[in-house]
């Protein structure tokens, strides 16, 4: 699977929802609160064995932003 598909699957699992699209905003569209976003980031770090910088995190609003974080960090 591509990174994009993997991240979407990961977000579905973390938020317990059936469908996630790349252009969706984590908070407004998917109902994530700050703790959920932090948990998503930890799951991404665990999955890819990478470290995401806190400064990059503040800009991650959409699912696509998360995909971008992984693709640029790999």
């Amino acid at each position, binding site marked *: 699977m591509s990174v994009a598909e993997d991240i979407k699957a990961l977000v579905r699992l973390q*938020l*317990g*929802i059936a469908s996630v699209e790349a252009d969706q905003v984590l908070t407004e569209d998917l109902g994530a*609160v700050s*703790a959920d976003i932090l948990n998503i980031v930890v*799951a991404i770090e*665990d999955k890819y064995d990478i470290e995401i910088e806190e400064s990059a995190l503040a800009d991650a609003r959409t699912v696509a932003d998360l995909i971008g974080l992984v693709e640029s960090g790999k």
Partner: protein
Amino acid sequence: MPAPDVSTLIELLEYRARHSPARMAFEFGGNSVTYEALWRHVNRFAAHLVSLQAARGDRVAILMPNGPDFFFAFYGAQRAGAIPVPLYPELGPERIVSYAGQCGARIIFLGAGLDDERAGKLRQACSDGELVVTVPEDVVVSDCNIAFPDISSSDTAFIQYTSGSTGDPKGVVISHDNLLTNIRQMVEAMRITTEDIFVSWLPVHHDMGLILKTMVPFYLGLDLHLLETDLNHTSAWLKAIEAHKATFTASPDFGYRLCLRQIRDPSRFDLTSLRMAVNAAEPVRRTTIEAFERAFGLRNVVTPAYGLAEATVGVSCWPPGRPIKTDSHGNVSAGRPFNGISVAIVENGEPAETGLVGEIAVKSTALPHGYFDNDTANQALFWRSDHILTGDLGYIDEEGDLFIAGRKKNIIILSGRTIYSREVEEIADGVPPVRRAAAVGIDRKRLEGEQIYVFAEMRPSAVGTTEKREATVRSIVGAIFRQLGVRPGRVYLVKPRTIPLTDNGKVRHAHLRQAYLDGTLVGEGRILFPDY
């Protein structure tokens, strides 16, 4: 205005309404509510409850977010002689009905316009007519001149639930005397005066937000600026501190950590009016205090404190304005117990020597009698009949300062909110493919802090494909979210016989946590899904 000599909270509010009616009781969302208005609405809500046939001692569940209605309903219930039971407002309908059953509440107050869909579902769930769901908009009363019952200091002021487990519910029964005694203890130890200005976003349905941050201001008649609880936007908190020149605020450690993450440019905020920012209700990190004070140019302002609902709320705090004290393990001292409170460290039923870690036991002039309708839990709660066992581990150093070093009870502290492992497990166990689930709090010492980790053993027939596994995890997360209003940090599907049990079949939470953190679970291939 000096603190009045009152014996109940109702007497306190009546006193304030009579002697300083035009004074602001609190401000919320730009609107201030005077003591006159507060008292009028409290009486209106009380009359409404009487019209619903609420009798003396009846429990009234209240699910309301921060805002004026919460206080009207909470004190309205007390005024009517009933017992308010504040609950987390995001609970799902099934959970609300379950709590109502545990405390025997017949009347449930929901926030107005909070969530019509949820109110509808709840009304449906209560359609047998036994439960009455009411919202502030329903409160229409023509005659508030009812003779309400007299309330005495030993009467129950409210029930504070710390666990909604159906098998082991824990609602602490707190009296007016408990509250006023603990309020006076905190006022003295934290040197709170009528000159202080409070800002708070802490949820009012929970002990620190309710007692320290709203009852203390009412008691002293000082300014309280109350905010919504919105951890996605901590800037609102900091803006309010600056705008109102607040001197006193409080938060679990998580709140201060989130500020550091969300606020790019701390120099935009002037927090120098702050005299004290209490850090309590979850483990205090030295690194948080240092980073927060450095970022906002503060010195000796963030102050560790310790407490729990079983002791009303406050037990100890570090002396205001003094540099914090840490030990060689990085534990931060929570200071000394307030006047009227003493702490013992108990190991194997006996007092431990100075400096040795054991379970923290608390004796206090503000000690409640225990949990509502749970004899088994009450028997386990007390030590030598006059101390409560807190379930927290700690020690007292040579200078008499208390350090919290860990936890004995199976709870998860999520941004200051206590959730018992068992509550989460009961929900996960109800998801069909799950044979047995265990929930532990995992703190990886990072920004997100302690989180719920669920380990679910599957029925052998249900192990299934990746799609099925994903669907099971989503069902578990969804069920926990619907009922508790929070999502776990991670849900793992694990092989049968992965969850360590005692001889009599109880989950060994500490062993499970350790096996996850030291990599044993992954190393032994116990985790089926997901692969991270």
